[in-house]
């Protein structure tokens, strides 16, 4: 029983991505939703690193970019969440339905 480590890692990555997606779908707290998104990004990072083992360093470069972008996204995202917290006194995404239909 010699599971290919790359395949296993890819499956893990996919699993993590799925977990992140599921988290986004089921959680209502905006911050947790956002953290789930971060989880998805990092799941992809895992894949990229696996790929880079055989396919080259480009993927690792991309991973760095992803991390940087994620940081930027976090900064902006948290700012937005703060802004909305001021209006709604809460971060339950289900409550934000002023805009609909």
């Amino acid at each position: 029983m010699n599971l290919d480590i790359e395949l296993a890692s890819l499956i893990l990555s996919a699993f993590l991505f799925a977990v992140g997606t599921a988290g986004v779908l089921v959680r209502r707290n905006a911050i947790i939703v956002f953290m789930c998104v971060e989880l998805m990004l990092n799941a992809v990072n895992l894949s990229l690193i696996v790929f880079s083992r055989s396919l080259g360093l480009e993927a690792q470069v991309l991973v760095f970019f992803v991390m940087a972008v994620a940081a930027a996204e976090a900064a902006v995202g948290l700012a937005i969440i703060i802004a909305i917290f001021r209006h709604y006194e809460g971060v339950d995404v289900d409550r934000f339905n002023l805009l609909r239909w």
Partner: protein
Amino acid sequence: MILDFSSSLHIVWALLPEIVVAVTGLVVLMLDVFQRGSRSAPSAPWVGPLAITGLVGAVLANAWLLTLEVPAQNAQIAVDGFRIAMNFIVLGVAIFGLLYSFDWLNREGQFTGEFIFLVLMAVVGMMLLGGTRDLIVLFVAIELMSISVYVLTGYDRRSRRSAEAALKYFLMGAFASGFLLYGIALIFGSVGSTNLSLVTSEIALGTASNNPMLFAGVALLLVGFAFKVSAVPFHMWTPDAYEGAPTPVTGFMAAGVKAAGFAAIVRFITIELAPAAEFWEGIIWWLAMLTMIVPNLAALAQDDVKRMLAYSSIAHAGYLLVGVAADSPLGRSATLFYLAVYAAMTLGSFAIVYLVAGKGDVRSKLSDFRGLGWRRPLLGAAFVVFLLSLAGFPPTGGFIGKLYLLSAAVESGESVLAITLVLTSLISYYYYLRVIWKMYFEEAPESLPTPERPGLAFGFAASIGALALLVAGLFPGHGLRTASRAGEDLVPRAAVVAPGAAPSARPSGQDPAASRASSNVSEPER
């Protein structure tokens, strides 16, 4: 001048327009940081003109790109007619978007340099999106654009709607980015390179057709783009974000983000991933169908003009997807042309909406447009032009654009798409005409205030926009020629040559007679 990408400096030259915009943005930001301004006035009165100047500079730089010769297109950035045309469109969107937004910023007392900075950064992202050939750059560009636009959406901090829109857009956008990124990773995993032009042979060899990982990658990449251009069913954020965002931002988003998104789809999906056509053909076809039908129906139910226009802009993504689905030079040219026209009309429409809506963007209901045509005749006339163009009615650019898309669909044998295009346009007539009837057929009650007179920049932008649409409707020859050339002039995959091989000529550098007047339709048997 001949570009040779073995020299890093030449890469700077190739990126000159983007660099000009980015530098302008940074200068504006710095000015804003070091200037002390009151909260209700622009931090520096001349940041606006400065930004416009920078953008005009970028336009010039972009035009300069046309003069370059590129023997070997092996950089991560393409220097071809398509990119240059996209740059023009995006820069135009930026210039007009800014001109339109000054009135709003002044009215709302929120004229700060960061607004302009964010717009310029988004523009840089958009431009890169239309030009890059590398998945890494693609990801960075798309995030640069998106993050700037998230912030712009929530720019009006006093507004609950703005905040809500920003949060929704941000969460959805980040979520979509995850899928996009996963797609990139899977493609990379399948073909071993992020620079798709270098992996030609891999797919062409035929290993693709039963490669689920590649398929999943392409599909997820497409989903990421579809989200950006708000194609159904990935469009759900659009009406909310568009409605909640400050109205000038909405126009900018609707025009710019969509243009950039389509540029990416055209380049990455239909060109770079052309050998994987079997994967995406069907998807794009269905996206086009759904994106034409669903929002047009939903728009019928809207009584808020801004939200109605939001649905309408989704519908236009559907029309544009027809051009993509045609998957031909004609289709790409049509998409380009329509994007330009669409940008002009959608920017103008949203701008007029905010003018009518008044301070705080409160009056954007249909009933608030009653009697507008008689109270503000010029504004009304301009709006009529924009709406008719959106509806695709002659003699406006919108009509020519739709005709262009239609001929692309017919040429590719996509008659179902063609007929859906016209039938959904028909549905759209109703809600566009409804605005016109409110404006002209119904009297304004006394209680309804007359919209204030627009400022000089607004007036200039609106008149140029409306006139341009009419000119594009009546004398589209030049525009069509340009679009046709640009649509055919995408760096082809086959043009990638090994270093040291004989330079191949760029299509656009060829004898102009090659694109003679009658050759707008490509070879019939593709």
